[in-house]
């Protein structure tokens, strides 16, 4: 017997001024299945979920729930239709108990009194049937993140939801909690619930979903099942092209030394060495990777190269010119570019418009400056150019940087630094916290810059990235470069053992 699908979306389109967030979305979720929606940030997943949950009304298209066409005006309509949503960020009152949070807004009455006992009993039963163990009288503030999520799920079930939307539910969980969550999801499925699972963690999607819908650029671009694809193929569906790899094809390393650091040392105020015996060169067209567990002196190395922290001893030569004693601005002007490890801390003015952010670090020169003045027109044009070339998703160059997603902020920073054409670019964690598409774009740009002769100092915690991109890798351990490695000969495992100091090979 063909049961009506739990959710069916046909031709759903949602436009915002200037963009189409969802276009002709087709989605069929069978009753009683775990259906995953995957896609990168910005692919349209959140808009789609808001449409299904009644938070956003589509401009076009039809939504059918359990065979009946619906027209949700508010989430309340969706709740009445048996849909529940567990948000990524929980909406719980910390100082209330689990019980109070669950019944909040739909208090069971017995006469004029709230029927706490009945509610408590229901929560106990719900918890037992789905492995969502909770103590109804515990205060929410005492709960772990995983337990809070359980409260959210119970709350949704308590209101009689048959269809559960879980928005990036694993983002906040530790692996142990993820397993527990997945067990509960399986129990819910056993009991006939339908689960819509939003994620961009592909391995998890493959392990829990019955069927998968892939979104890209606001459209549903494919439907598949875990049996048909592996995570690599799924990732390629998501980004619409071959999965990027940091792998560089052929060496573009030239003889000319662009950055020569020798005997660099920094001592703390107590005289303890923070960095010691730092010797390395970056040649033209070369990416030199610095591997290391964070906190082994990477930040201090960057600061000393840029002149943000005083160098105790040693020399830093950029294209033959000594940098020691020069101010940060002079070093920047001499051609040291920086993609900072923490873009919010060192790379952006979050409340300021994009065009002001595009000038940061280069505000003293063309096209950003004109004599003693900031060239607003030139800066805005150049920013538009960065936005275009580096594919920064933004309505215009006047929005504050804080309005952009992390990946787009990073693309702006990368674009700004690469387009400034530095002699040597310090790229610290250049793809941290951004999605696959943005990561691929950043890798491509670094490779292009390398091929064009830029020297790049890559500091990264992503070992695949380091091994794939670098021509040479140095391992920084406790403030010293303990090994110089050829990336073509090592694996992440080997690199990892150097990083923890288990193996040592003197830098040559």
């Amino acid at each position, binding site marked *: 017997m063909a049961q009506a699908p739990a959710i069916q979306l046909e031709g759903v389109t949602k436009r*915002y*001024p*200037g*963009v189409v*967030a969802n276009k002709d979305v087709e989605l069929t979720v069978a009753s009683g299945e775990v259906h995953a929606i995957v896609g990168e*940030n*910005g*692919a*349209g*997943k*959140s*808009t789609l979920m808001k449409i299904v949950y009644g938070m956003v009304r589509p401009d076009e298209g039809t939504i059918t729930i359990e065979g009946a066409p619906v027209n949700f005006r508010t989430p309340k309509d969706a709740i009445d239709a048996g849909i529940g949503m567990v*948000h*990524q*960020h929980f909406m719980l009152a910390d100082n209330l108990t689990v019980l109070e949070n669950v019944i909040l807004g739909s208090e069971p009455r017995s006469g004029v009194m709230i029927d706490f006992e009945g509610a408590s009993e229901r929560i106990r039963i719900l918890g037992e049937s789905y492995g969502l163990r909770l103590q109804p009288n515990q205060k929410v503030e005492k709960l772990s993140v995983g337990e809070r999520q359980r409260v959210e799920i119970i709350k949704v079930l308590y209101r009689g939801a048959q269809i559960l939307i879980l*928005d*990036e539910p694993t983002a906040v969980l530790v692996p142990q909690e993820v397993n527990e969550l997945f067990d509960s999801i399986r129990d819910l499925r056993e009991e006939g619930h339908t689960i819509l699972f939003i994620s961009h963690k592909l391995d998890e999607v493959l392990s829990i979903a019955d069927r998968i819908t892939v979104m890209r650029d*606001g459209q549903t671009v494919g439907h598949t099942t875990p049996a048909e694809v592996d995570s690599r193929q799924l990732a390629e569906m998501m980004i619409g092209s071959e999965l990027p790899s940091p792998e560089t094809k052929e060496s573009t390393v030239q003889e000319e030394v662009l950055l020569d650091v020798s005997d660099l040392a920094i001592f703390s105020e107590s005289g303890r060495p923070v960095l010691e015996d730092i010797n390395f060169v970056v040649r033209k067209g070369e990416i030199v990777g610095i591997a290391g567990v964070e906190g082994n002196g990477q930040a201090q190395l960057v600061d000393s190269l*840029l002149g*943000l922290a005083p160098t105790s001893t040693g020399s830093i030569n950029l294209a033959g010119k000594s940098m020691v004693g020069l*101010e*940060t*601005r*002079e*070093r*920047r*002007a001499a051609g040291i570019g*920086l993609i*900072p490890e923490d873009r919010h*801390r*060192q*790379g*952006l*003015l*979050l*409340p*300021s418009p994009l065009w*002001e952010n595009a*000038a*940061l*670090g280069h*505000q*003293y020169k063309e096209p950003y*400056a004109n004599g*003693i*003045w*900031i060239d*607003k027109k030139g800066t805005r044009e150049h920013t538009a150019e960065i936005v275009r070339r580096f594919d920064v*998703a*933004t*309505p215009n160059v*006047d*929005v*504050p940087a*804080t*309005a*952009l*997603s*992390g990946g*787009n902020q990073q693309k702006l920073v990368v674009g700004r630094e690469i387009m400034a054409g530095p002699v040597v670019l310090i790229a610290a964690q250049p793809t941290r916290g951004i999605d696959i598409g943005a990561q691929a774009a950043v890798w491509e740009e670094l490779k292009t810059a390398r091929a064009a002769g830029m020297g790049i100092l890559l500091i990264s915690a992503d070992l695949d990235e380091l091994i794939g991109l670098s021509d040479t890798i140095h391992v920084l351990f406790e403030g010293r470069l303990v090994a110089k490695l050829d990336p073509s000969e090592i694996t992440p495992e080997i690199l990892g053992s150097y990083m923890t100091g288990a193996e040592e090979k003197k830098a040559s």
Partner: protein
Amino acid sequence: MKSGRLLTSVVAPAIALVIAFGFAAIALLLVGIDPITAYKEMWVFGTTPESLIITVNNAIPLFVSALAVAVGFKMGLFNIGVEGTYLLAALFAAYVGAQFSTTPVLHVTAILLVAVLVGAFWAWIPAYLKVKRGVHEVIATIMLNYIAFALSAYLFLNVFRAETAGLTIATDLIPETGWIPSLNPLLTALGIEVRAGANLHGFLVIAIVLGVGYHYLVNKSRFGYDLRASGINPTAANASGVDPKKMIIRTMLISGGLAGLVGIAPLLGFYHQYPQDFPRNFGFNGIAVALLGRNSAVGMAFGALLFGFMQRSALILDLRDVPKEIVTIIQGIVVLAVVIVYEVVSKYVQRRVIASAAAATDFDPVTSGVAA
């Protein structure tokens, strides 16, 4: 975006004014006075041509003081020391200006220069302490205010006071070449009748130039960019090549230089000497005006005019047996209300901008945790 600007720059202050006058009305009612009548009297008295001139005259030092404060605010520096700085600068300017006579323009320029230099020096002290010793500028400038009060009182009574004892204790009179002429002839030429006794300070022209200069310096120049970047995100500004120490020194020198000019309008436009009762409080009220004007030149001009108007129109309350402290209360509430309303409105505007940008890129700032 445009409606957002309108909201923050016009609607927010308007709401704040309504709130402030509302609270003041309650205060008036509590002391048994009809607020409508009181406000009407203030308005009628405050809008006579004479009163308007005095309003502007009152506003000039407040405006310059606000500029001095605002330039520091822009990079997150709180120069509370404008009060002491301008008193000291005015005293030195008055003394030096009385020592010689030359051509008018040159004489005035020399006096302005003295005021700027003294002001800049006085502000350099806390800047140096901050850069070299990490002393917070709020502490340093507050303390320096007391030192400036004591020092100026000492110098005034023991060194700079005129020997020829007149009725008032003051420094020597500055020769007429060192006076800044009134703008009244200009007003007459424009067909505005002015009664004797109200002389529009010629320093107004300089104040406007300073305001325009401030706007260009802060919003259009590379220095202003560095200044604002340092205020918004000091670590990012530092990484971009802004030396925070130099920035502190330069900004405080500018702030101090401007502060030195605060007392010049009354000095060269009215007293022509430094009397013992040289007007006080421009420095402290300047902080309020800077807050009121959100550090924008135009906003601070309006803020200064509002304060100037209230000071002037309050005089009529005295004659009607209304405590004129009511005006001080209004001033205080206006500042508080503006600060609060502005925060609320700008948060709202910012949320809207972010939401529309987010919608346009299908990025959810709330669920991505950026907004937090």
